């Protein structure tokens, strides 16, 4: 039997179409993760979902479903509360948002580590994996002081990451890159710079506002002159740096 080019072309196309079409029909064709993480194979946690299998394509919603870590906790820990729908936020987007610095990286592995800490599961993060400072306030009640100390040593503020990125790229600086308290500064930004909730409340003399609210608007609503608290907040932000 002899084949020529005019035979090969349809053969190739038909084999691909039948192969792909057939497996789609049988439900075998998958191009995305099933969002069901692998489980620990042995030991105390055998059978439980393993955070090591969290992938960049997992959204915070997927993680909540698998590990019972609330989306709100994840959004706060990674300072993305202001995004339109934090449940749809993909882990891999952290790499775009914060990127790598000479000290380490905030990315998918940070989420794995955070989830393991939150859920009390064993996980060894990569050496250069970092967490953001708001993670501390989320994890405070779940970890011992010794564990918190370990986590603190691998924690950075958003502004630190921003400053490193700016030094590397020498591009225009964005607002989050400098911890400067201004009229447009939100509570979320203050938290991401490492200013604790307690400190903010102490300065304002009020419970903290929503992460997306600007401090100035919140002050006006509550009858406080923004200029009277601005310096104190700036000092707290500088100290947190």
């Amino acid at each position: 039997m002899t084949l020529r080019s005019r035979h090969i072309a349809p053969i190739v196309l038909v084999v691909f179409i039948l192969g792909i079409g057939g497996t789609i029909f049988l439900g075998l064709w998958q191009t995305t993760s099933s969002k069901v993480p692998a489980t620990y194979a042995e030991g105390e946690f055998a059978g439980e979902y393993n955070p090591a299998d969290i992938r960049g394509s997992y959204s915070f919603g997927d993680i909540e479903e698998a590990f019972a870590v609330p989306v709100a906790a994840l959004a706060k820990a990674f300072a993305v509360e202001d995004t339109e729908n934090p449940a749809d936020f993909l882990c891999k987007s952290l790499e775009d948002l914060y990127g790598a610095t000479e000290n380490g990286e905030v990315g998918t592995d940070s989420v794995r580590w955070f989830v393991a800490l939150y859920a009390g599961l064993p996980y060894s993060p990569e050496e250069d994996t970092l967490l953001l400072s708001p993670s501390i306030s989320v994890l405070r009640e779940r970890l011992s002081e010794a564990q918190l100390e370990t986590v603190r040593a691998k924690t950075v503020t958003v502004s630190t990451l921003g400053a490193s990125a700016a030094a590397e790229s020498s591009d225009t600086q964005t607002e989050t890159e400098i911890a400067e308290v201004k009229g447009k500064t939100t509570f979320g930004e203050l938290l991401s710079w490492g200013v604790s909730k307690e400190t903010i409340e102490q300065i304002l003399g009020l419970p903290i506002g929503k992460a997306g609210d600007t401090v100035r608007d919140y002050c006006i609503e509550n009858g406080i002159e923004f200029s009277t608290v601005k310096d104190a907040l700036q000092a707290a932000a500088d100290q947190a740096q």
Partner: protein
Amino acid sequence: MAKKSTVEADGSKSRKTKARRVANIRLAVQIFFFALIALIAVNHTLEEAGKAIPILSSASLHAICPFGGVVSVYQFITAGTFVRKIHSAAFILMWIVFVLTLFLGPVFCGWVCPFGSIQEWFGKLGRKIFKRRFNRLIPYKVDRILRYLRYVVLGMIVYMTAATGTLMFANIDPYFALFNFWTTEVAIGGVIILIAVLLLSLLVERPFCKYACPYGALLGVFNLFRIFKVRRNRSTCIDCKACDRSCPMNIPVSTGGAVRHHQCITCLKCTSEQACPVEKTVELTTIRLEKIQQEVAS
């Protein structure tokens, strides 16, 4: 005499036209797959921005690369899972390509692989620049040794991926860089290698396929036992070496009966459809051409 040469010239012209038409069949298939993969890659980016084109797949490039299936085999056997970023689609594509290769040889390399195609298209430009020196610049002895380098690359990638469970070499993958250069997912290492390969393609035909492609290395092994082989009819061969000159992989087609060289990509450039000037002398067939000739004669 003048009439005879006019007839010969007309015959040669019509043969060239026919060969060009045949070559265009493969070119059309290559363009189809190149455009399809490019569209899927663009759609993947659009999907992340919430603007995906409906109907068209928006899978990631890793998910639809059959080599992803190959590097996942170990993990699939030992743990029942795929390497990170690889899904069942890559595994299925791996089997589809294996079936095609078992019958037709590495037809995937010569007809489908978009990275092979782009090297070939750059090579066309290189041929215009360097004329006869194109694809003949590397000394034969060096070239012969370098061609086994891709088995080293294959071994390294399979071992490292099995050991780590991740696509360790994604950051230096020129194929991934080609279809993702506009995204932040691509690493600078991949872009550098991509540019180097495209520049080398101006000097050497398909340099990555010849010296570095791990998937081509694996598929190349099928050339030893593939069912349809490129075969030469020794009794009708006029020993003009046109088949040797036409082979993009520099395989000496004219020295044997059947091509079993591990680098054949089933492009069919050497066959009587294109380069070979004698009818039914170099063909893609299952049985020896001399046997067909004997059967016809008897």
